[in-house]
């Protein structure tokens, strides 16, 4: 079913203080990773409205990555704790509507962790490749 040349399309929401800077660090360190994700910069991972995630999946994104500061490192004290609760709930919701919860991933990546950003990208792309394209691309989740 899956086209051999198919490449997943991934959206990444990255907080500007830690993870966006971590992605920058991967760049300045020239660490190579697959070109599947597009980063949207937000002030805090806590800004990521569940609606953004659902909209991305509805628009047939194959995966959504949310990247924020490690616990305790949040520039806004506690935004990332709220993110982690939202993502946990949202994963349950995805199951309910017939989407694989693995399509939504949450990672804590600090400004120094360019390597982790690249490794996360590699791992996530591989995982999504195993899952195949977003089921909505083929007319909706199978019953």
């Amino acid at each position, binding site marked *: 079913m899956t086209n051999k040349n198919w*490449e997943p*399309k991934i*959206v990444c929401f990255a907080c*500007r203080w830690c993870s966006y800077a971590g*992605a*920058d660090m991967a760049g300045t360190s020239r660490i190579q990773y697959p*070109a599947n994700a*597009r980063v949207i910069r937000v*002030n805090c991972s*806590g800004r990521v409205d569940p609606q953004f995630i659902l909209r991305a999946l509805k628009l047939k994104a194959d995966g959504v990555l949310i990247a924020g500061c490690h616990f305790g490192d949040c520039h806004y004290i506690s935004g990332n704790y709220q993110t982690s609760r939202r993502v946990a709930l949202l994963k349950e919701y995805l199951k309910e509507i017939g989407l694989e919860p693995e399509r939504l991933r949450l990672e804590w990546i600090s400004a120094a962790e360019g390597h982790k950003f690249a490794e996360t990208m590699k791992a996530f792309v591989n995982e999504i490749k195993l899952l195949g394209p977003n089921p909505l691309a083929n007319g909706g989740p199978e019953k």
Partner: protein
Amino acid sequence: MSTEHPKIGVFICHCGSNIAGVIDIPKLVEYAATLPNVVVAEDYRYMCSDPGQDLIKERAREKGLNRVVVAACSPTLHEPTFRRVLENIGLNPFFFDMSNIREHCSWVHTHEEEAALEKAKDLVKMAVARAAELKPLEQKQVDVKASVLVVGAGITGIQAALDIADAGYKVYLVEKEPSIGGHMAQLDKTFPTLDCSSCILTPKMSLVGQHPNIELLTYSEVREVDGYVGNFKVKVERKPRYVIEDKCTACADCLEVCPVNVPDEFNAGLGWRKAIYISFAQAVPNAYVIDTEHCLGMTPIACGKCKDACEAEAIDYEMKPEILELDVGAIIVATGFELFDAMQQLEYGYGKYPDVMTNLEMERMLSAAGPTEGKILRPSTMKKPKHIAYIQCVGSRNERYNAYCSRVCCMAALKQARQIREKYPEINVTIFYIDMRAFGKGYEEFYETTAREHAVTFVRGRVSEVRESFETDKIVIRAEDTFLGQPVEAEVDIVVLSCGIEAPKDLSEFARILGLQRSADGFLLEAHPKLRPVETNTDGIFIAGAVQGPKDIPDSVAQAKGAAASALAMVAAGQVKVQPYAAIVNEDLCAGCGICEASCPYGAVKVVDNLAQVTEAQCKGCGTCAAACPNQAIAPQHFTMEQIIAQLDALFQEAK
């Protein structure tokens, strides 16, 4: 202006070959020109340069642009640059967006030119879509408090405090130890000039103590930092010294009666001090302190001898910790480093063999004011040694501990070797090293002279084992001489471990209090490794000295002066612009449910009369409330629902 139809200019940077070497620029320009609302798309070799900026200005005037997108490097680097360009031509600086096609694209997809081009197209498309949704924002000017907090009073903090105080501004200098001076006070001599460390440091220390603009808070620690650039509120805890600074005359009468002996930290544990003590003779403030951990008890029943002995009546057993609240405009963090704990590297036998010591212990031994009054003695026999060996890179350049180079240990070992050879030409010194790094001004010359004229022996190779000799009372060192390509063994009397520099153990907690990031090596992260070395990602907080990474004294002082100048520029301007990202409430949509109030980490949102209200000065624009609001009635400016949705929709519009 916001109601005007968007006219967007897209400017694509080659960054020399950094971007153009991977991404097909003409194709990207061609693509950008087809995007909705784009009036002009152009490329240039260096968009951030003057001609690049002029190009944007010219096109903006010619084509009547009201939005600008630059596809180049990370916005962290040049967003402020391009916002200024917009300001210069009378456009609101927030009608600007940036596509990061360097750090996030050409540098990380170097060998996938097609995929990189596709990604760059998407990133530009998303930025253009977002640009159309941008709103003009007003950057508020806030007053900057005319005072600076300097944390840490080693040579770095001392220099920064003096520069700011000399410029006429108030400085609070906070030091957690009972005296200022830091590690430099423990050094006997400094490289490469071999001048006495105390002779250049202590005059600065006494200047700090006497400066009318410096409020010195020793034996104190920063507990809380609140507020924002220009207006930080800081809580500092003054630990009780149990000795009144102003009354203590440092007469030492208390020392004679104190019955407790404690290993002396200032002498790296080589000597003893009392439970009531002064760190060193030139301490500032020149006042004693009671170490309650070792004191027998501050009551006449348990002991209380020092109080009886003190004629100046300087001792107060009732002293309590005190919290001071400071208002400052800027903060300089100069909390320095800790020495690598040699006990960790078991194969070198520190703690097991008395004749294995650290470079700091040797430094104290070399000091005329130290525990041996400058005499070099073998700890196990208290006799003069015949042969001393240095092991370099202990805890440094080693994946097991710290991968980085500590930068000062090579020169410190050379300096000590030279001092030993000058004082005792009969003692042989051998340095086991990986690479000798003598990189500073006058350092290479110092290395040459030490090797040639002072006949120090160098062996290139990492030491694998240190043990006691089976036959003699000596220490045996085994290493591979990588020049000869064969193992070597040496019998020596003293082994000195050149312990590297580490971030202080409590730095992670302190970084959290300040909201600062650390780099992978554990030190504080600067805003840009080359161009903003003393700034952090938090406006108004600066870093200097070894807290940013291992550094010698000249580099620390240079950074101190840099941080002082940066803080002064801000404080002297009197006003600073703050980011206008505070959340705003759509009153038509707000149901007054209060979820936003519960989600706000700053207590900036309150529900009053069934409507959420944001206190702008308290809101930092994180947007947690917006993600929590079930009605999309609240959103931080510049990161609105429409703006983010526009990026998502643009990205997937061609997806089937």
